[in-house]
Every structure is written in C-alpha cells, then in structure tokens.
C-alpha cells in the first residue's frame, strides 16, 4: 500500500518509498534471462519435437496413401491375373474335351472298320467251306450213283425187288450220311 500511494502521489513521499527502480530493473533483467534460457532449454527442443512429430505424421500419411495405392494396384493386377488364369484353364479343358472327342471318334471308326473286315473275312471263309461241302457232296453223289448202278446191274430183279432194293439203298445212303 505504501508503494501504491507512493506511486500515485509521486514525489510526495519520494524519500520514504518512491518508485523502486531497482525492482523494475531486476524484473526486466530476470525476465529477459528467463526468456533466453527457456528458449534455449525448453521451448526450442519442445517445438523441435512437435515439428518433428508433425513431419513424421505427414510422412506416415503419405506413406500410407502410397501403400494403399500400391495395394489397390496389386489387387487389381492379381484380379487380372486370376481372370486370365481362369480363362486359360477353361481353354485347356475345352481343348482336352475336343481332343478326347476326336480320339473317341477315331477309335469308334477304327473298331467299326476292323469289325467290317473281320465279318467280311468270315463270310468269305463260310463261302469257301460251302463250296467245298457242295463239291464233296457232288463227288459222293456221283460215287453213290455208280454203286447203285453197279448193284442194279449185279442183280436183275423184279420190279418189286428193285423197288425194295432202291428203298434199301436209299435208306442205306440215308443212314450212311
């Protein structure tokens, strides 16, 4: 209060209280020292760290953005690749099916041809055998006729006997066969 009144009524009690210029000088001096020291030891490092963090975060954001774009690009590439592969696989299956069908056709054709051929040869063989059989039969009929004729000549018989004889021989021939 003393200093306040002293301040307000300057000069009135100047000798007793006055304006404490020393205090003011001390305050100024101390404050400036404090300002400089804090700038060196506190605000400087702290602001550096804040700046560094800011840079770090903006870097991280940039990197994240880049990574995201990369991932997107890669994903679309993979999609493309997958599509292509699927198409290729489809193509391969189609080709295989086609080939199989062709082979099947070939095999069937070959089998059919072979069958035809076998049938043909069998038929020829049968024909040959038939010819042979007919030939043999004809030969036999000829020899039989000769023997019948010789028998007829051997014995002059009545009509009844002759008939009987013929029947006998016919029977004999029938049995002989």
């Amino acid at each position: 209060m003393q200093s306040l009144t002293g301040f307000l009524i300057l000069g009135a009690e100047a000798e007793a209280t006055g304006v404490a210029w020393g205090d003011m000088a001390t305050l100024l001096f101390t404050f400036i020292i404090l300002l400089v020291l804090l700038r060196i030891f506190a605000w400087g490092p702290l602001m550096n760290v804040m700046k560094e963090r800011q840079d770090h975060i903006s870097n991280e954001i940039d990197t994240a953005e880049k990574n995201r774009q990369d991932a997107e690009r890669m994903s679309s590439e993979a999609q493309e690749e997958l599509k292509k592969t699927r198409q290729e696989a489809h193509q391969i299956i189609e080709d295989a099916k086609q080939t199989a069908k062709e082979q099947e056709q070939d095999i069937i054709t070959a089998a059919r041809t072979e069958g035809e051929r076998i049938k043909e040869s069998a038929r020829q063989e049968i024909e040959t055998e038939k010819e042979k059989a007919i030939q043999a039969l004809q030969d036999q009929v000829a020899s039989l006729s000769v023997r019948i004729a010789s028998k007829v000549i051997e014995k002059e018989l009545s009509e009844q006997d002759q008939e009987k004889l013929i029947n006998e021989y016919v029977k004999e021939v029938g049995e002989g066969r």
Partner: protein
Amino acid sequence: MKNLDHKQPMVTDVLGISWLDFNMSNVLMIIVSAVIVFILAVSATSSLKRKPTGMQNFMEWIIDFVKGIIGSNMDWKTGKQFLPLGLTLLLFIFVSNVLGVVTMISVDHTIYWKSPTADPGLALTLATMVVVLSHYYGIKMKGVKEYGKDFLRPMPFLFPLKIIEEFANTLTLGLRLFGNIFAGEILLGLLAGLMTSGIGGFFGGLIPMLAWQGFSVFVGAIQAFIFVMLTMVYMSHKVSHDH
C-alpha cells in the same frame, strides 16, 4: 487491514545512487517465480518423446494454447516469433499470481513472500516492456516510415489520440494485472487475520478462505491469459499491414 500495515523491506540508495531503491521482497519473489517457471518448463521438457507422455503433453497443450492466442490476432508467419515471449509471459505471470495465493510470509511485520505482480511498479514494468517490444517489432518489420505513418491513420488529426492510446494501453495492461492480484491478496490477508483471531474466527473464515483461494487461482490464470492476449493484440496492431 493487517497486511496493509506491513512494512516493505526496502533497501534504498544502493551503490550511493539516490534513486536506486530495491524492495527486497519483490526481488526475492521475482527470482523465485523465474526459478519455478524455469524448473517447471525444463523438467517438463527434459525427456522429450515423439509420442508425448505426462508433463510433455501439458507443455504442448500450453504451446498450442498460446499458438491459438497468437493465431487469433495475426497470421502465423508473422506471429511465430512471439511464441516464446507469449509462453514465458503466460507461465511467469501465472506462477507469480499463484505464489501469493498459496502463502504469504512476513517476518517482524515486514512482508517477504507475496505475488510480485501485486506490486504496481512491477506489473507496469511488464506492461511497458510489452508495449516497447511492440514498437520495436513494428519498426523492425514495417520500417520506420511505415511505422510512423501508422500514427496518422486512419485520420491525421487523430495523432494525439494515438499517442495517448499508447500510454493508456500500457497503464491499463499493467494496472489490470496489479489490481486483480492486489485485491485478491488483500482479501486473503483479511481472511487470514480473521482465522488467526480465535476459534470462532478460524471456523468462520475457513470456508471463505478456501473459496477465495480457489477463485484467486482462477483469477491468476485468467489474468495471465488476458495479459498474453492483449500483448498479442498490441503486437498485431504494430506489425500487421491490414488495418
């Protein structure tokens, strides 16, 4: 008016210079405040990490707070050089204000421990320093010619008012701070006197004492904020081109 009867520990005529007087309690409290602010700030920023923890968060909050004050008055490119000044002012004034709230020590009716900002001379010294700095930065950033022209704007005949404004700014800036803190200390002193007068006085004064101490801390913070805010307002008047 117990504490008003207190004597000030004056040391007069130091080094034989007739006007060089020291009030030792002021000198003590200035140094105590400065040391506390220094220890607080340096310990809070001693282990700086990119991922902040504990006190670093608090300090960064203060930095952002002062950045906000500066940013609301001028663009950041001009204002960033005032950041250390604003931070130091804010912490120094707040700590000074609160020191007188926490306790008050007097020896032989001579008061030693109080708020340095409860002294009108010291509050005005801070205000004067700020105003002088604003003139300095005005000249530095705009040049003498442009700085001088600002006194003739918007109308040349307002020049005397402009001059008066500078002194009024200084006076109001300093005395606002002083008035708030001094009033708080007086009431705290009266309540302390009441509480030491007897049992009834102790319990009668306990609740008002606690309430007023809380309020004084609040006032101390608000006054520190206002002081820094006005500092930046005056700075921007001097360094900005846009008015």
